[in-house]
């Protein structure tokens, strides 16, 4: 609400036809607002670097490097051979942060997808159809919200986390617990998004363009997904961005507590498991994976903040 109308001298006098540049498109306007947000740019760049680190690192280390144990080289402090040191069974921490980063980011992205799909479908159904369906869906949403997420995650991780077969994706072998973690994070984080989407639908469905679409006989499915949903994309995109950060943190919490992704698959979270037992002797055990999680979450949060300002200038807080 603070768009200052302050045209430089000449432009104010010209009529639109005389302006040399054509008006900016929505995308260009968004990009302009986003660019002004320096921290968001910083976040975006850092995030790209982190992605390069996790995926580019594959060129220098193989997954076997990340999982090879050298019991003779346990708990070595950072050195030339092992720039980030070695862990309790002699694995190279640098290589593990690279492969762990891939899994952490994979979990962040896919858990966000689960969250967005569920949140949008449930929020849209509740908001659009209203009535009994709305109250049923909202009761379920509240039921998930009233139990703190970490408790739900731990109960579900324990419930679904039996012995699972390994899965093979993109030439990598992952322990099946990765899928469980993705699903439970997605399943416990959609309610907030569903509430946002529902609120959007409640107000948007009263608009004239919806009435017009109805009058021309547009099927309900199309009204929901082609007329209303695109209009509520801004908060969904912002929530999805922040959802990635939340999912990465959530994975780290569960893994830190020992119920997350099972070894040998590394994630930034499970590298921290038990690391606090070595707080006095081996700081490199927890510092590097912890720092990478913090950096990732920080840059995603900055990015999300910038996106919020850029996509939806009205929501800008003071």
């Amino acid at each position, binding site marked *: 609400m603070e768009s200052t109308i302050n045209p430089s001298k000449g432009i104010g006098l010209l009529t639109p036809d005389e302006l040399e540049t054509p008006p900016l498109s929505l995308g260009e306007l968004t990009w302009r607002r986003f660019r002004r947000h320096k921290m968001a740019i910083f976040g975006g760049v850092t995030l790209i670097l982190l992605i390069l680190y996790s995926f580019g690192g594959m060129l220098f280390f193989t997954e076997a490097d990340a999982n090879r144990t050298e019991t003779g080289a346990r708990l070595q402090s950072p050195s030339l051979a092992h720039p980030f040191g070695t862990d309790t069974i002699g694995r190279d921490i640098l290589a593990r942060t690279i492969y762990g980063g891939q899994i952490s980011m994979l979990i962040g992205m896919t858990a966000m997808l689960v969250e967005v799909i569920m949140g949008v479908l449930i929020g849209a159904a509740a908001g659009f159809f209203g009535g009994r369906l709305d109250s049923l869906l909202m009761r379920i949403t509240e039921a998930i919200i009233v139990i703190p997420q970490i408790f739900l995650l731990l109960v579900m991780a*324990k419930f679904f986390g039996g012995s699972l077969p390994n899965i093979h994706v993109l030439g990598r072998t992952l322990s099946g617990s990765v899928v469980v973690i993705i699903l439970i994070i997605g399943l416990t984080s959609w309610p907030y998004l569903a509430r946002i989407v529902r609120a959007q639908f409640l107000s948007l469905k009263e608009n004239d363009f919806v009435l017009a679409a109805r009058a021309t006989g547009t099927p309900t499915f199309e009204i929901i997904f082609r007329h209303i949903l695109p209009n509520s994309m801004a908060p969904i995109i912002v929530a999805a961005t922040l959802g990635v950060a939340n999912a990465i943190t959530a994975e780290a919490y569960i893994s830190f507590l020992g119920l997350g992704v099972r070894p040998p698959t590394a994630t930034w979270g499970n590298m921290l498991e038990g690391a606090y037992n070595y707080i006095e002797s081996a700081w490199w055990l927890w510092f590097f994976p912890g720092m990478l999680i913090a950096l990732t979450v*920080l840059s995603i949060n900055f990015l999300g903040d910038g996106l919020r300002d850029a996509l939806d200038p009205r929501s800008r807080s003071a």
Partner: protein
Amino acid sequence: MTRYIIRRLLQAIPLLFIISVVLFVMMQNMGDPLATMGGRTVTRSSERARLTRQLGLDKPIYVQYLYWLVGNDWTKIDLDGDGVPESAGRRQGILRGDFGTSLVNRGVPVVKVIGDRLVNTLLLMLTAELVIIVGALLIGIYSALHQYSVLDNAITAVTFFLYSLPVFFFALIVMYIFAVNFKRWGLPYLPTVGMFDPQVGKTPSQVAWHMVLPVATLSFGFFAAYSRYIRSAMLEALNQDYVRTAKAKGLPRPQIVYIHALKNAALPIVTVVALDLPFLLGGAVVTERIFAWPGTGRLFLDHVSRGDTPVVMGLLMMIAVAVILFQIIADVLYAWLDPRIRYK
């Protein structure tokens, strides 16, 4: 208003029912409560069968849920294993306030198991909440009064950075600096484990000293959210007509800021605090684990892995009820503080 409250309370009943069924079903796959019961291992299979029967774990899950919900004193149960139910049940069920007894700490009522830990958790969490509110008020008011100043921007950046740090990482860093390195450098260092030094005993000063790091860990992340909230609420209030009127009347600045603006800005803040309070009951799972604080978060962690259904269910249902109640309280409080709001 009364009708509104009653309607909200009635809505909570199906909600709690859904939660309890889902959680109860999930708790059935949590590992073997008999394996670690009371610190001893039950090896003989006849012994196992007897204990399973006595604890009612041999019943189908819907019967177990029913007994948990309404008790089993209206029916007879089979204790001696001859297939004939002969003894009268003694459980009253959670609906009549009987949370049952812990499976892990054999025979100790759940209420006592949770109660013992709840005291520690509330001590930790309420202190942290107090630190958060006071700190966030100071930061938020300062930021609002000096909007876009260098310090305001610096505070925003720092709190945002802290907000993004995962709790365990912050905890490990402060432990490393204030406990490990301070000890190394011969400075007075902060303790990192437990509530008190067993050699000194549980004195208030010991407990306070042991609380420093956990409280810092718990509060740092919330400064960002709360202070941003207070900042924008204050900015909005400061732009209102009544503040301009107060200024025009020539009132002293502190009176304008703290009486006219802050009082009005406090409305939404009160609601936010009321909504966050019940979550304190659950403690902080990660923080309590790292600092070995004997609170409800750690209780949950220890008992969930051993499949102690009564304790875990008791704890989670207690949190759920508190969250729902505080949601209603927050709504009522808001309407009471701001008479413009009416509920139907």
